[in-house]
């Protein structure tokens, strides 16, 4: 960049730059503009979600925090039961012998509060223990019908003390009792990271190769084009599967596996663009003024290729999200406890016939939304930055 020079007799003022051009010449109205805005808003929301994942997610995404298959929005509360009036609420449980029924929410609530307890395998045993005074109180699910039945059968008058307390799962829990909402929030981080990193990586490889290939031509061009075209002719997901299987699991490996399949996209785009730009008169004029090959490539060809890279990048991220989801759906993505939309989708699909729709609906919707966001942004940008449309 040349510096603005101020001399005593004349002042060279900077009038207009790329930003100014964009602000004045780009289309700021019409459907494309709204599409881009909507896509951008969607992305900003999701990106904010990933940035504040720890604050937003109510639970640890990999811990079993609730009963399996809790419905979305259902409150899973527990109550304290006792017979002797020695316990008046949750605050009195510390230091007392407390019982819970195996598999109930009570154990998790007590764990979360750091209280010790004893497990009973069935409501009958638990009520017996309560009656015999082995435990001072029993912490049980508020809506456990078996418990009330047992109490009635054994002739024990069970009192409920204190308010019901417990957890709400906005989007329900999965088959292990993990909070679906927390997994989605944390999963966004993984999927966005991998998709953007993969798109960057393939751009970082594909763009320079395309520039060199298109600009210098010859044997290099022939060889590179052959390799890239053969890569391109593979179905993307199949190639990604092969790469992922070869590299093994892990964030970086998945990223590389996805990046490899998109290198030809950048290569082909950049190469074809370079082929047309290098025939432009200003490139020839630069050469006629003695510009070296590298200067011509860097200052005259590359800047004129950038706009198309920006557009394809956005669309490419959308594509990599789908591929990442596809890979983890097939079990080739991140290793299991990691929250990952594609993996949750594949793990949850078994339970859909049983009516547990929320296991796959929410991760699936998020994949669709994120992809849509990037696609809309890319398409909108494409329309807005397209000089044919702005000059008219």
């Amino acid at each position, binding site marked *: *960049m*040349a*510096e*603005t*020079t101020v001399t005593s007799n*004349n*002042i*060279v*003022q*900077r*009038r*207009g730059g*790329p930003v100014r*051009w964009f602000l004045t010449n780009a289309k700021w109205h019409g459907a494309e503009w709204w599409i881009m805005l909507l896509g951008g808003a969607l992305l900003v929301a999701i990106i904010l979600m990933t940035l504040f994942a720890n604050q937003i997610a109510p639970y640890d995404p990999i811990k079993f925090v609730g009963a399996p298959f809790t419905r979305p929005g259902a409150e899973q509360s527990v109550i304290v039961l006792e017979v002797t009036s020695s316990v008046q609420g949750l605050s009195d449980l510390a230091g007392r012998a407390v019982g819970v029924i195996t598999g109930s929410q009570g154990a998790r609530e007590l764990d979360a509060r750091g209280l010790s307890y004893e497990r009973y395998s069935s409501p009958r045993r638990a009520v017996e223990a309560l009656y015999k005074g082995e435990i001072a109180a029993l912490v049980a699910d508020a809506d456990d019908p078996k418990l009330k039945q047992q109490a009635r059968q054994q002739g024990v008058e069970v009192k409920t003390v204190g308010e019901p307390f417990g957890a709400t799962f906005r989007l329900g829990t999965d088959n292990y009792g993990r909070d679906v909402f927390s997994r989605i929030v944390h999963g966004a981080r993984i999927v966005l990271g991998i998709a953007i990193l993969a798109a960057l990586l393939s751009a970082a490889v594909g763009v320079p190769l395309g520039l060199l290939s298109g600009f210098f031509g010859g044997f290099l061009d022939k060889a590179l084009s052959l390799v890239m075209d053969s890569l391109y002719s593979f179905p993307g997901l199949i190639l990604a599967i092969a790469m992922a299987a070869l590299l093994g699991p892990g964030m970086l490996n998945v990223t590389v596996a996805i990046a490899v399949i998109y290198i030809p996209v950048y290569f082909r785009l950049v190469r074809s663009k370079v082929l047309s730009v290098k*025939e*432009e*008169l*200003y490139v*020839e*004029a*630069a*050469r*006629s*003024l*003695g*510009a*070296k090959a590298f*200067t011509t490539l860097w*200052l*005259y060809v590359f*800047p*004129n290729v950038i706009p198309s890279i920006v557009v394809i990048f956005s669309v490419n991220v959308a594509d990599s999200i789908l591929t990442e989801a596809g890979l983890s759906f097939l079990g080739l993505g991140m290793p299991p406890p990691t929250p990952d939309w594609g993996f949750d989708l594949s793990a949850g699909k078994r339970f859909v016939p049983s009516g547990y729709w929320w296991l796959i609906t929410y991760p699936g919707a998020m994949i669709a939304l994120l992809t849509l966001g990037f696609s809309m942004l890319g398409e909108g940008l494409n329309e807005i930055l397209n000089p044919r449309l702005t000059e008219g």
Partner: protein
Amino acid sequence: MDGMMAQETQRQEPQEQDVLLRIRDLQVQYQVRAGTTRGVDHVDLDVYKGETLGLVGESACGKSTMGRAILRLVSEPGKIVGGQMWFNGVDLLAKSDVEMARIRGKEISMIFQDPMTSLNPLQRIDQHYIETLLTHERGLSKAQALRLAKGMFDNLGIQPERLSDYPHQLSGGMRQRVMIGLALVLNSQLVIADEPTTSLDVIVEAQILDLLKELKQQYGMTMVLISHNLGIVAELADRVAVMYAGKLVEVAPSLALFDQPLHPYTQGLLASLPNIRVEDEELHVMFGAPPDLIHPPTGCRFHPRCPRALPRCAQEEPPYRQVEGGRWTACWLYP
């Protein structure tokens, strides 16, 4: 080769040291699927120091190819396949690509036909100048380069503030001025102007031609003016070279050529210009179309269209030789 050289030298009227660019037997061919196109075929031409040489001919006759060949910028699939070019006694064809890049813009530069596309749309004008200057003059600072560019803008008649504009903010005439300035900013000895005013309107064309005349005097440069517009050539050129189908058919001092053309092609070319002084004169038409350069006619390439063709013209190629002082032509009418 040396013998031929000596012979050629003898035929030249001006002295050896006056020759800035000497082209001998230059051949440029385009390898296309249909065959080999001889864009420039065995051309001999001298450009003298300080002169303006007009290179005229119809479209696709090889005049632009010749201009580019001088800079060794013939675009693919074209190739210089034979001949010699000496610039100030330096063999241009023996230079490496890197050495040639050093000559371009500094010793020989070029002005292109279409100023609308000959500037990088994403670079400011000052960056064009700075980059060109810094490429050739190591040790020059950006501030110095900018000062030189400003000085050039004074000569071009553009306000120096426009240096920080982008090309799209300038008019066509201004852009062509900018290009001319770029070609001259390093004091190139030889400027090849490839139809510099073709895409401009008449008013701007006149301004640019005036500017070229002015700058030529100021910088003492030599210019090869490629054009199909005989009016421009008549106005600017000291000597005129006429090309037809990849060959030179006639070279003569400007006045002599327009006054009394020798080659029938030149005669036809001049006769096809309308004359505003004569009323109701029917325009002379040259029949036929330019020949296919992959399969050119035998003998003289112009003979199928020539009104004065001799039987010999179809068989033997006429030699390119001096007819009278400073007048050269390739035609059997002047044996």
